[in-house]
């Protein structure tokens, strides 16, 4: 009897072998050096649940101590952003945010998740209140096992779905030559020739490097009555004097929808911004108005399909 028991024990032990540790490491590299914005992958059922949860959280003002939801500022009607109050940093668009190399104007968040966390916890933004989440969980609004981490994960998963593929320019890149008219094609040529493309390139037509605003002329800041801390840009991250007035090069996707422009929302007119860029960033003394118009026409082709709120 003892022997049989022993054998059974050994059998049970060997069953334990089958439950071995899964590898801790995994790699999800999302690198496709192509210009068009890819369509979103179809989520699995579990991911869908998570995304649905994220969507609910995105618009839920009850989680905030200041009655702000993510959707309050990142309005879908205005290209995923909205006008910020004066003397505050402009609200960057949430569309295609997943493809930015770093997040925020001063590139202080390395990953989207980090950006979501910062946005939630910042008193200027969502101003997340854990007690309110607990209350909502008690009320049965959210799953029992939800904590801050799962909340961030759900929101991140949702934000990742907010992309705008299918713009006319993307169609052109994919081989549909007739997607752009002649003027727009001329505008694209000018965009390249002027050197805009040196910074505004990649999938997002920008969004993958930082650059100083005012390489040739710092007139923009000189004209400002007062320099705000957020005007210092990347300097806030590195505290290196070289990095003053350095900002993340913004994506030009859906740019037509996203007035006002620049990190402080200082310019409302897209033509003006193009002009400013030509002068302060590319060193041109002037730029002909025809060229500006053509470039702006090209920029309008970058507007993609806006996701449904």
């Amino acid at each position, binding site marked *: 009897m003892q*022997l049989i028991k022993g054998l059974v024990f050994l059998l049970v032990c060997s069953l334990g072998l089958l439950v071995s540790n899964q590898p*801790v490491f995994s790699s999800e590299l999302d690198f496709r050096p192509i210009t068009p914005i890819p369509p979103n992958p179809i989520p699995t059922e579990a991911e869908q649940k998570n995304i649905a949860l994220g969507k609910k959280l995105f618009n839920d003002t009850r989680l905030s101590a200041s009655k702000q939801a993510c959707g309050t500022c990142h309005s879908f009607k205005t290209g995923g952003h909205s006008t910020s109050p004066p003397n505050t940093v402009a609200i960057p668009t949430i569309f295609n945010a997943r493809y930015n190399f770093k997040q925020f104007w001063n590139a202080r968040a390395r990953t989207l998740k980090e950006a979501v966390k910062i946005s939630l916890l910042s008193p200027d933004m969502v101003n997340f209140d854990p007690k309110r989440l607990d209350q909502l969980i008690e009320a049965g609004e959210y799953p029992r096992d939800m904590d801050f981490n799962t909340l961030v994960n759900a929101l991140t998963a949702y934000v990742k779905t907010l992309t705008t593929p299918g713009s006319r320019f993307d169609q052109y890149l994919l081989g549909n030559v007739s997607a752009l008219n002649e003027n727009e094609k001329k505008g694209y040529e000018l965009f390249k020739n002027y*050197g805009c493309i040196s*910074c505004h390139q*990649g*999938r997002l037509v920008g969004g993958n*490097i930082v650059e100083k605003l005012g390489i040739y002329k710092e007139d923009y800041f000189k004209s400002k009555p007062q320099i705000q801390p957020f005007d210092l840009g990347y300097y806030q991250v590195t505290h290196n004097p070289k990095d003053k007035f350095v900002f993340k090069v913004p994506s030009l996707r859906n740019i037509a929808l996203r007035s006002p422009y620049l990190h402080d929302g200082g310019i409302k007119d897209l033509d003006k911004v193009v002009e400013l860029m030509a002068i302060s960033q590319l060193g041109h003394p002037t730029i002909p108005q025809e060229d500006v118009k053509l470039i702006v026409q090209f920029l309008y082709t970058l507007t993609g399909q806006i996701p449904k709120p």
Partner: protein
Amino acid sequence: MKFTYRTKDRLIRTFILGMLGVLIFAYYQIEISKYPYANYKVAVALFKKHDAELNEAVILVRAGILTDYVQYDGVISALAGLYDVVDMFKKSLEQHPNVKLATQLSKLEKMLNEEDRLITEFNRLNPILSNATHDFSVLMVDIIESATQTNIVEQFSIRDYNPEHYEFINKINELFRNVLIYTGGTQNEALYLPLIVTLLESIKNNPLKSGFPKLDLAIKYAETILDSQQKITAVFKKLLSISTITELDKLATSYGKLEAISKTKANLYRYVFYVLSVLLLTIIHFAFKRLQNVVHQLDETNQQLEQRVIQRTQDLANKNEDLNKAVIELHETQDQLIIQEKMASVGMLTTGIAHEIKNPLNFINNFSELSNSLSLEFKTLLEKEKSHISEPVYTELYELSSDIESNCKKIKEYGTRADNIVNSMLLHSKESSIQKEKTKIRPLIENAVKLAIHNYKTQNPSFDVSLKMDFDPHLTYILASPSSLSQAFVFILSNACWALDEKLKLEKLKSKTSFSPLIRITTQKKEDNIILTFFDNGIGIPEKNLTKVFEPFFTTRPTGFGNIGLGLSICYDIITKQHKGTFSVASTEGDYTEFTITLSITQQDHA
């Protein structure tokens, strides 16, 4: 120190349990708890791959191989990949903390952060440089073309050929070339920078400059190029000097060491596991053996106990039997004693009566004989005197004397009979007066048989009986009185004959012929005793009479034919009193009768 059996058992059990525990622990260490960072090699390889990609992308960007549509995505994705790997390391360290690894990882991360910072700067400077270079080139080509055309026109006119102007154009050309050649770096700076700075200064200060409106912008671009070339080369150098791989290799070595330790540990535990397994199996084996022994012993003990119980039970039964026997014997003895006592008293009574009757009987007998002879004398006298007496008187007297004579004969006859009875009765009193002698038992019995059966046959000629005699060959002589014993045997045998005859008659009445009368006589020597049995399958004795058969005057046979019921009583006296033997009877009515006589061969008188 002495342990009780129970304590020992518990100790052994605890030991085995402990060993099992150690076994499980060892097994856990060998198989289940694996090296926690088992996949570190994958991560290291991934890191190296991304590092190589990063270097490649940086060099491609720096060398301007990717023109027109500059892809920073290569740099950025490689960097992101590196951060991913660091995150993997971090995650695995969160699950299995290790201070040394964490320190090394944080060093690696710092280095990576530095690399990130440099790349960000590199990426920032690069578009400035490329745009400036592009615009500068376009401007310079424009300026030089227009200037050369002017020059040609002027050469044709020859009037005012301006050597200064010509020299200025040359300077612009030189600047164009030198700026484009300039790539920054210590050597390059030493070689070209002073030259270019001098050129720039002389062009700036030359009054001819006003003839070239675009020259100011070109100079600005040239300055930007110089500045950003310097910066970007410095960043590039720094970037290439950062060796994340060295730091990674250190980390990998630490991981490798840990893995080696873990493997050694696992091996050690494996040995422990094997040794303990063997030990445990051995212990279990011995435990089994011991158990088997114990079971075996238990069985044996059980059997012994059972046997002992059987033995005891047997003993008890034997004793009980003995006791019963003793009780029966006691009863028998008691009965015997009672019978003996009764017999003795009856015998005494009989003897007394016999003595008392003997004398008067003698008188009766004698006087009857005398009267008879007197009667005979009277007759003789009467014959003589016949003539003297008248015929009728004579006849009457003769008849009277004949009557007297016959009466006397009758008296004599019955007197004799009574005398016989009295004599028989007197046999009881012949107690110790007998003479014992060495007697052959076999002829004694055979004579008695002959006598008895012959005697019976003469009275009942139709009677026939089969005889079986079984004599013990070891038995030859006994010390006894042959005459009295013979007499006893005859009594017994004639009784047997009678019983058989009675039964024969009964069977005949029932018209059954299957019955064959049998008398069986056995002698047997037992120790110093002789056992004689007389068996017949006659009518047997009713149970109620069994105790009475030895009593004098007890008979079931019709009286008046000499059956006065003294036979067995006399036998009893002969055997018990004269020979100090025992005499018993066993019988079933209608089936058989068996008399058993036990006599001592040596016949020691107890008296």
